[in-house]
């Protein structure tokens, strides 16, 4: 069962229901499916968590996943991971789940939609200043846009926007192109080769999830650490003047 044909690039184009501007398309449906799987799976595993030394294999997998995310966050940000774990973890888990489920026939990854990747990029774009302001305050955060000089303000804003755009397009391009290549090859060479490419697509999807999460963390870390650098510079200047 296929919801999309080869000509359709994005699952947004498969619409089930539309009322004015409200549309229920394949992206949203599969997003809900992925969300339901993740939430129900998490609930099933975490409803009876063991605090003893012997734990279930599912709990073990989730603990490895969570502790791995925390380690990565700590390594990148040089800060305590607790604050960023839900956001970065959800990004990674959602994207990875969306990409890995492509092995299911008929499934179309929501990340193959530019709307989804843009939404995720927008979430990162909004979360970066939120984390920065929460950590250092509004003034200190905004000051980083005029560093090292006030003339850098437009470039810094452009940098923010362009990296968000790159974040969205990179994930969309990789996943969409992967699924399209598999679809085309399936039409041309239906045996063996598409399976290999599918496996490669799984690897690519996992790597893309990792890249997206890591870049998001790098942006957040830069938002919280740039201010520290500027503070240090300011303090140094004060010391020199005295």
């Amino acid at each position: 069962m296929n919801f999309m044909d080869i000509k359709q690039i994005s699952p947004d184009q498969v619409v089930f229901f539309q009322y004015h501007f409200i549309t229920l398309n394949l992206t949203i449906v599969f997003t809900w499916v992925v969300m339901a799987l993740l939430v129900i799976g998490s609930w099933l595993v975490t409803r009876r968590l063991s605090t003893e030394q012997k734990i279930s294999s599912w709990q073990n997998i989730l603990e490895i996943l969570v502790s791995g995310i925390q380690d990565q966050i700590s390594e990148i940000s040089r800060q305590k991971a607790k604050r960023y774990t839900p956001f970065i973890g959800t990004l990674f888990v959602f994207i990875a789940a969306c990409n890995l489920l492509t092995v299911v026939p008929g499934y179309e990854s929501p990340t193959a939609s530019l709307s989804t990747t843009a939404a995720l990029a927008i979430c990162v774009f909004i979360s970066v200043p939120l984390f920065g302001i929460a950590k250092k305050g509004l003034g200190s955060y905004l000051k980083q846009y005029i560093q090292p000089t006030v003339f850098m303000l437009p470039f810094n804003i452009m940098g923010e926007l362009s990296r968000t755009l790159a974040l969205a397009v990179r994930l969309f391009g990789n996943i969409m192109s992967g699924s399209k290549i598999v679809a085309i090859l399936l039409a041309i060479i239906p045996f063996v080769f598409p399976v290999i490419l599918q496996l490669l697509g799984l690897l690519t999807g996992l790597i893309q999830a990792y890249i997206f999460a890591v870049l998001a963390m790098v942006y957040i870390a830069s938002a919280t650490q740039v201010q520290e650098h500027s503070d240090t510079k300011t303090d140094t200047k004060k010391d020199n003047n005295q």
Partner: protein
Amino acid sequence: MLIDWFTVGAQVINFLILLVLLKIFLFDRIKQAMDQRENNIKERFDKAKEQEAKAKESRESFEKKTQSLQDEWDARLKEADKEAKERRESLIKEARDEADGLKKKWQNALEQEKASFFDRFKKQAARLIFDTVEKTLSHLADTRAQDQAVKKFLSRFEELDKDDLPRKIETQPRVSTGFELSESQQKSIQKAVSQKIADLENIAFDVRPELVFGITFTAGGKKMTWHAHDYVSALEKQINQAIESKDHEPQKQ
């Protein structure tokens, strides 16, 4: 158009919902379980450390007690050893003293026996000599040894100086002999004594077998004796020397 803004908005909302749900059902719970288990492990580790410390303390206490008991044991052993040594020395000394006493007693008994033997020997030897001499003289010289003994006694008595004689005689003078004197012999002795000592009353005569071949005159605290004991004593001396020299010779096997 590749981007649908409604979908973008919906995905943002979906993502936020997922963020909240995963925070509640996944990250917080897993983190809590991990922290709880870490705390449990830490508690167990602390408990184990505490128990280890207690065990170490108990071990040290036990070692101290063992050492104390060992020291006490050593001290008691040393004391017992010392006591045993002292007791041994005391017993050895007692045994040695006892052995010395027994040896001394035995030596005394031996000496007494020896003295007794020689006393008997002297008497018997004197008796034998006297009998032999008596027989020899009677066979060869037709005379008696008693007569010769009395004669010898009288000649010696006559040779006595005035200083050797008693001045004042308060008790009765006595002549003791180892053999029976004849009446003529008694008279001749009486006569010889009367010539030497004035105012002398009768002399008492008695026989004392232990003198064997001797004659003893006792008067006024003075005593004059002649007997064959001198000869026998010389013989005894020679026998003694012979026995002693034989005792001291190394035994040859």
